C-alpha cells in the first residue's frame, strides 16, 4: 500500500507539469495583459513595468523562468495586488476556504448520509418522499438565491447571526456560509446514499443477515459499508472543489477566501495568481483522488493495489 501511495505521488509530478504548461499558455492567449487599465498607462511606464515583471522576454523564456521559480516554491508576485506575493495571498485565503469547505463537507456526509440511509430504510414512506423532495430542492435552488434569503431571515429579520464578514472565523460568522455551501452537497450525498443503500438492502448478502435473525443495526451497518463506495468516489472531487473555495459564497458573505481569486485573477490577467490557483486546485484534485482510492481499498477488500 505504501509503495502504491508513493508511486501515485510520483505520477502526480508529470500530471502537474502538463497542467501548469497548458494553463501557462492558455492564459497568455487571452487578449490584454495585467497592466492594461481603462485609462492606458504611459508607454514609458508600461515598458518599465513589463521589464520589471519580465513580461518583455520571449514567451518561452518566461515559461522557463516561471517553471524554475515554481520548482523552488516561488509562485511570484501578484501582478494586480502588487503588494502581495501569490504565496502570501494563498497563505491568508486558503485557511478561510478550507475551514468553510471542510465544515461543509463534514455536514454533507453526516446529514446527507443519515438522511439517505433513513430514506432507504423507509423506502416509499413519508420520510422517504420528504428526503427525496428536499434533495431535489437543495440541488435546484442556486446558492446565490439561498445565501441572500438566509441573510434576510437570520441576519435581518431574526437578527441571530451576523450578515457577513469573517471576524477571525468566529462560529457565528461561519454558520450561514457553511450551510449554503453544504446544502447542495447534502442533497447529492443523500440521493446517492439512498440509491446505493436500497440496492444493497436488496442484495443477497443482506438477505443472509436477515435469515440469521440479526438485529437491524447490524444489517444497517453492513448495508452502509456497501453503500459507501459510490458516495466516496463522488466525495473526492467534491472535497477538492469545496476546500478550494466558492466565488459566490465568499463574495456574498464578504469572506477573505481563495475562491474569488479564480475570477479576479482571470479578469485582471493576473498571470501569476491564475497560475497559482491552477496549481493549488490541481494539487487538491490529485490528492483527493488518491484519498478516494485509498478509502476504496480500505472499504472493499477486493481492491488491492500491488
Amino acid at each position: 500500500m505504501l509503495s502504491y501511495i508513493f508511486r501515485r505521488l510520483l505520477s502526480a509530478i508529470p500530471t502537474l507539469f502538463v497542467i501548469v504548461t497548458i494553463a501557462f499558455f492558455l492564459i497568455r492567449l487571452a487578449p490584454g495583459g495585467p497592466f492594461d487599465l481603462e485609462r492606458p498607462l504611459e508607454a514609458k511606464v508600461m515598458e518599465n513595468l513589463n521589464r520589471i515583471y519580465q513580461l518583455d522576454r520571449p514567451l518561452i523564456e518566461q515559461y522557463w523562468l516561471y517553471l524554475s521559480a515554481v520548482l523552488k516554491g516561488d509562485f511570484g508576485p501578484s501582478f494586480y495586488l502588487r503588494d502581495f506575493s501569490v504565496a502570501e495571498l494563498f497563505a491568508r485565503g486558503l485557511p478561510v476556504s478550507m475551514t468553510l469547505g471542510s465544515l461543509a463537507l463534514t455536514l454533507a456526509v453526516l446529514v446527507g448520509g443519515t438522511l439517505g440511509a433513513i430514506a432507504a430504510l423507509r423506502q416509499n414512506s413519508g420520510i422517504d418522499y420528504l428526503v427525496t423532495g428536499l434533495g431535489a430542492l437543495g440541488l435546484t435552488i442556486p446558492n446565490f438565491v439561498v445565501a441572500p434569503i438566509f441573510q434576510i431571515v437570520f441576519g435581518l429579520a431574526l437578527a441571530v447571526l451576523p450578515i457577513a464578514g469573517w471576524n477571525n472565523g468566529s462560529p457565528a460568522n461561519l454558520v450561514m456560509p457553511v450551510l449554503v455551501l453544504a446544502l447542495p452537497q447534502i442533497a447529492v450525498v443523500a440521493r446517492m446514499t439512498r440509491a446505493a443503500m436500497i440496492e444493497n438492502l436488496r442484495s443477497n448478502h443482506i438477505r443472509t443477515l436477515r435469515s440469521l435473525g440479526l438485529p437491524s443495526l447490524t444489517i444497517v451497518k453492513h448495508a452502509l459499508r456497501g453503500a459507501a463506495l459510490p458516495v466516496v468516489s463522488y466525495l473526492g472531487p467534491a472535497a477538492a472543489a469545496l476546500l478550494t473555495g466558492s466565488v459566490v459564497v465568499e463574495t456574498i458573505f464578504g469572506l477573505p477566501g481563495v475562491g474569488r481569486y479564480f475570477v479576479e485573477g482571470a479578469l485582471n490577467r493576473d498571470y501569476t495568481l491564475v497560475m497559482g490557483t491552477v496549481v493549488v486546485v490541481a494539487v487538491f484534485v490529485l490528492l483527493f483522488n488518491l484519498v478516494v482510492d485509498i478509502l476504496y481499498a480500505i472499504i472493499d477488500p477486493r481492491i488491492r493495489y500491488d
Partner: protein
Amino acid sequence: MAQPVLAVRNLHVRFRTGDGTLHAVKGIDIDVNAGETVAIVGESGSGKSQTMMSVMGLLASNGWAEGSVKYRGEELVGLSPNKLNHYRGSKLTMIFQEPMTSLDPLYKIGDQLALPLTTHGGLNKARARKRAIELLELVRIPDPERRIDSYPHEMSGGQRQRVMIAMALANNPDVLIADEPTTALDVTVQAKILELLSDLQKRLGMSIVFITHDLGIVRRFADRTYVMKRGEVVESGKTGDIFAAPKHPYTQMLIDAEPTGRKEPVPAGAPMVLEAKDVQVTFGLKKSFFGKAGHVLRAVDGVSLSVRAGETVGVVGESGSGKSTLGRAILRLQPASGMVRFEDRNLMPLDRGGMRPLRRHLQLVFQDPFGSLSPRMTSGEIVTEGLLVHEPSISRKERDRRAAQAFEEVRLDPAWRNRFPHEFSGGQRQRIAIARAMILHPKLVVLDEPTSALDRSVQKEIVELLRELQKAHGLAYVFISHDLAVVRALSDEIMVMKTGKVVERGTAEQIFDRPKEDYTRDLIAAAFLTENAKAEARSLAS
C-alpha cells in the same frame, strides 16, 4: 405422532405488482417433523421458494403472507422482524441458491460467522472465533484457522456454500431450509455439498427442508416430498411412494422429464463437416509495465475434433474447463491457433470478411435464452435478421414467409412472430434462438448449454426438437453441456474436458459404461445422483 417442528397451514403468499396482485402460494399445508428431510419440488414459478421465504420472513417488500406457520406450536406469521429474529438464525436457518453473492464481500468470513454466534449464542468475540473455526472444520473447509481470515472472494463457490452452511448451523438449528443449495455449483461440487448436508443431518439431528427442481436430490435425500405446481401442493407423501406410483399427472410428467433415448449412429459414408486439429486459445492474464507477457492461461490446450453430417459431438466438463471457448474457437469467433477446416476449406487464414459468407453454415445457439435475443425486435425480425446478410435479395414478403416456416419448424405458432421476446417463456425463447439458426439452413450448429437455463420438462422438449431437426436436415452438432444426461441422450461421440484439455473421448457407451479417467467417473458419479434415482424409480414403477 409427535407435534411437527414446523407446521404450515393454509399459507397464502401474495405480491403486489404493476399488473395487480400475484397469488404466488395458494393455501398450502406442509409439515416438517423432527429430524426428517422434506423436499419441496416443482418447476420455476411453482411458489416453492416463496413458501419458505415467507416462513423465514424474507419475502420481498411487496409480498405478504397469510395463514399460519407454527414453529413448535408458536405462530410465526404476522410477527414483527424483531420477534421473528428470536427464531431466525437460531432455530430456523436457511441457505440459498446463490453461494457467490450470499456472503458480504466486504467482511472476512470469520467476522460473518461470528455474527449469529454473538447475537444468538451470547458468545464473546474470542469464543465466537474459536467456535467459528470449529464450524469451518465441521463443514470441512481445509485449514480453517487460516481460512477464517479469508474474504469471500478468495473462496470458490463450493467453499462459500460451506461457509453458508456453517453459519446456518452455528446455533444448532431445528430446521435448515436449503433453497436449491447446489444448483449454481458444478456437478462434482454439488455431490460433495449434498453429502456434507446429509452427513451433518445425521450428526446434528436437525430437520432439512430441500427446495429443489432436481428429482435426483429428492429421491436420494428426502423422507417425504411435496410436489408444487402454480402455488399449490398437487401431491405429497413418502418419497418412495411418490416415485413408485405418482398420482398426479404433473408428478408423472416431472419424473418422465429426464431426457431418454440414444442417438442413432451416423452412416459410415457421411461427409465430414468440420475438422479441427490442435486448437489452442490462450489468454494473457496480466501484462507487466514493460509489455512482458505475464501469466498465460491456456483456456483450450491442443484440442482436436471432427464432426460429420448428422453427427453430434458432446463436449462435457465443469465450468472453466474451456468447453465454451472451444465452441467459439472452432467457429472463429475467438482468436485461436491450430487448424479448423470446414468441408474442404481451411478457415484459419480467413479474416472477418472471408468468414462472412461461410457463417450461415456455422451457427451458434447460446445458453441464456433471455440475454441472447434483442428485447427491441420482434421475434420474427430476430429470426430473419440473418437473411438480411446472407440473402439480401429476397423480398420482405419472402422473408416473412420464411420466418413463418421457421416458426413452424421449431413448433411455435407462426402467428406469434410479431411478438417481442419478453412475451415468451424461457423454452419458447430458446426455440426462437434455434429458429434463428435454422432459417439459414446451417450445416453445423454449436449448441452451448442450450438447455441448462430451462426447467427439466422444457429441456426434454428442446432435446426432442433438436433431435428432429438433426434428422430432417442432417445437421452436425457440437453440443456443449455440463449436463451428462442430456449429452448422453444426444451424442454420438463425447469429449470430456478439464482445464483446457480433452482428458477422455469416446462413444456415449464407452464414456458412460466404461469411463477410464477418474475425472470422468467423478462427473458421472455426481450426475448419477439423478440418474440412479430415475433408474430406481423406473424399476419400481415397472
